[in-house]
């Protein structure tokens, strides 16, 4: 096992399933034999606000927070939140972003514009960039709430962990009636990353 800890910052908007996704990731990597830590904030910050979850795995993990500038993978559930946390990445960092926008209040009120061409901005600075239509695919499959599982499917391609190990843990968190839908969501997500 590598000595270095891998740092993943999951970012999105309250209600998108960021915390569930990082819970699943923690369990998958614990089962794979790693030490894991993760940290997030609950309460007032979640009422439609920004949600971030710091997830770290390695041989021995100390801090539950990732040091700014040392994120290996920025996993963004929303475009603006992808841009907002960009500065936390390492220069050679990887980005997996959901191709989806949720307007913040200032944009809803017509006071500020939603930033233009976020994927292009990110691509101009980072080569290792994956844009996935997680929300759109989830809607096609039949439930927008499965977007986080589509995205986890895409994310799972970055690691040598068997698809079934991911699914076992994902399905543990979900009621049986949505298992089929989420199996499809996960495998559609996997197809998005070559």
């Amino acid at each position, binding site marked *: 096992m590598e000595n270095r800890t891998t740092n993943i910052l999951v970012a999105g908007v309250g209600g998108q399933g960021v915390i569930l996704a990082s819970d699943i990731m923690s369990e998958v990597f614990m089962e794979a034999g790693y030490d894991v830590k993760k*940290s*997030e904030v609950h*309460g007032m910050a979640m009422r439609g606000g920004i949600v971030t979850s710091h997830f770290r795995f390695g041989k021995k993990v100390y801090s*539950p*927070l990732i040091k700014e500038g040392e994120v290996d993978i920025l996993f963004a559930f929303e475009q603006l939140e992808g841009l907002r946390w960009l500065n936390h990445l390492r220069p050679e960092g990887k980005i997996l972003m959901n191709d989806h926008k949720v307007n913040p*209040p200032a944009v809803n009120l*017509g006071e500020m514009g939603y930033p233009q061409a976020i994927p292009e901005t990110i691509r101009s600075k980072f080569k290792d960039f994956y844009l996935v239509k997680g929300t759109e695919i989830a809607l096609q499959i039949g439930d927008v709430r499965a977007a986080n599982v589509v995205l986890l499917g895409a994310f799972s391609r970055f690691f040598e962990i068997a698809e079934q190990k991911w699914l076992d843990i994902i399905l543990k968190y979900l009621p049986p009636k949505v298992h089929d839908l989420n199996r499809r969501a996960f495998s559609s997500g996997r197809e998005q990353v070559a």
Partner: protein
Amino acid sequence: MRKILSGNEAIARGAYEAGVKVAAAYPGTPSTEILETIAEEYKEIYAEWSTNEKVALEVVIGASMAGARAMACMKHVGLNVAADPFMTLSYVGVIGGLVLVTCDDPELYSSQNEQDNRNYAKFAKVPMLEPSDSQEAKDFVKLGFELSERFDTVVMLRSVTRVSHAKGIVKLEEPIAPPVTIEIRKQTEKFTMLPSFARVRHRVIEERLLKLKEFAEEFEGNRMEINNSDFGIITSGISYQYAKEVFPDFSYLKLGMVWPLPKNLIKEFFKKVKRVYIVEELDPFLEDNIRAMGFKPKGGKDRFPLCGELNPLLVEKGIRGRGFKTPKPYFQEPLPPRPPNLCPGCPHRGIFAVLRKLKVYVAGDIGCYTLGAYPPLNSLHSNVCMGSSVGAAHGMAKALGEAGKGKIVGVIGDSTFLHAGVSPLMDIGYNRSYATIIILDNRTTGMTGSQEHPGSGYTIRGEKTHQVDFIELGRVLGIENPRKVNPWDLEEIEKVLKEELEKDEPSLIVNEGPCILLRRAFKKYNQPLKVDQSKCIGCKSCVNLGCPAISYQPVEGEMALTADGKKRKGIAYIDPTLCPGCHLCFQVCKFEAIQSQEEKPIFGFETVVNT
């Protein structure tokens, strides 16, 4: 067996493994999940949401006096509410082990201040343990019960947001049978704090503190890690993890118990290491006490911020000083912020829209509705602590006299009202002012994630129980004619509010409608509403309700005209995936541009609460 647990889940597990019999709390971020976990997973433990933190602590004091192991949990400011029993609990001590968990919130993620509750341990002369991760959280709770019984004292366990809401791997163990039997014990001189008995107890606690200092020297949770004779760090709790992350090769004195401090151990560390830094969040608590012992650290609060939480970058920057280079940003343009917001369909939104229209002064309180202070609602003007709205509105009315008549309102949530608003409302009934108090009764403790309370009709484990009637309660406290309004009917709210504001007597309005996230409260949600693009003139009346489902979208060219030729710069759009159909926007639109799919628009929802 190993399991991934949050700090809060680990504290709950620790209580279970320690054989706790009674656990009580009032919800408060970041402490809430401790009691939630106990209620869900450890049925052996009696668990309750108490009316407030003072009650929670008194409940566990009683349990401890009977010999049971008992635990109270609260957020940092909750201990202010419980400070009265807490300070004297130090005097009376315990029979069954008693652990008080305080979860501090450095950085104020969901709090009104960021006080450092380590100061309370020193103030009350009781021991405080401070875990740095989930495993220690569980271990220290168990240890806390042992120490509590061994030293006859309440033991404080201090967590912070980044311990409570961080997850890590924890080794689970089996529960033990506590050593003390549960029975009625009449130890009047120990437990009755008459001055004559309390004078004796004060001596006892000073002696206890000396014994605890001796214990601190040998306590294995106060641990030296000598890796380096040049650089070392004295630290505790989450700060240890941050420091260890960036300086793995330094020496450490990691304090598992932050009060009282082990003087000899600290002395030994200063002997072994040349340059010693003290790394801690918020107050210079360790630093001041270590300096007062005569030691001279190389750095402390001169290098680390007093405000906000630490993180690995701030720790590295503080120690490296001028030599530290902050990583260069890739992107620096300002981005639209994303502050928290009232949910679509929230029963608080309508009342704030009316309060804004009436231009009154609104004394606010602690809860989701404090967000009414943000644009575009801008209709909440103060907020100090739980329950403060009621007394503040009354005091302001007394100060203003005639000049303030018809202009002073206090708003308070149902759970907050029962926590700390009843006494000040009694004061209004007693001392008579014209302030209008509005209870925002959404049938749950919303901000902390929907917990039951004495007005919800259910216990922490979802059993039906007595439900407080706010109208009856208002009458008993001296409000002659308390009234209810439907939170989704703007006309009704405005009419009732105007009538109540005109009164020269105490008045109470109950804005009664369940939290939109309270699933059991709704038979069904309404159909989403839709903007008729041919009619919308872009006046922003609906947009200014601040509903996350409604956005304003600029238009150009052909789109810049309505069907009947009126000019417009933009139109409103309602996101059907977010809109639960509360019809507030329908009511504020003067151009019939918002369409309801209901046959007859209903101002409100079909609810099943209170049946």
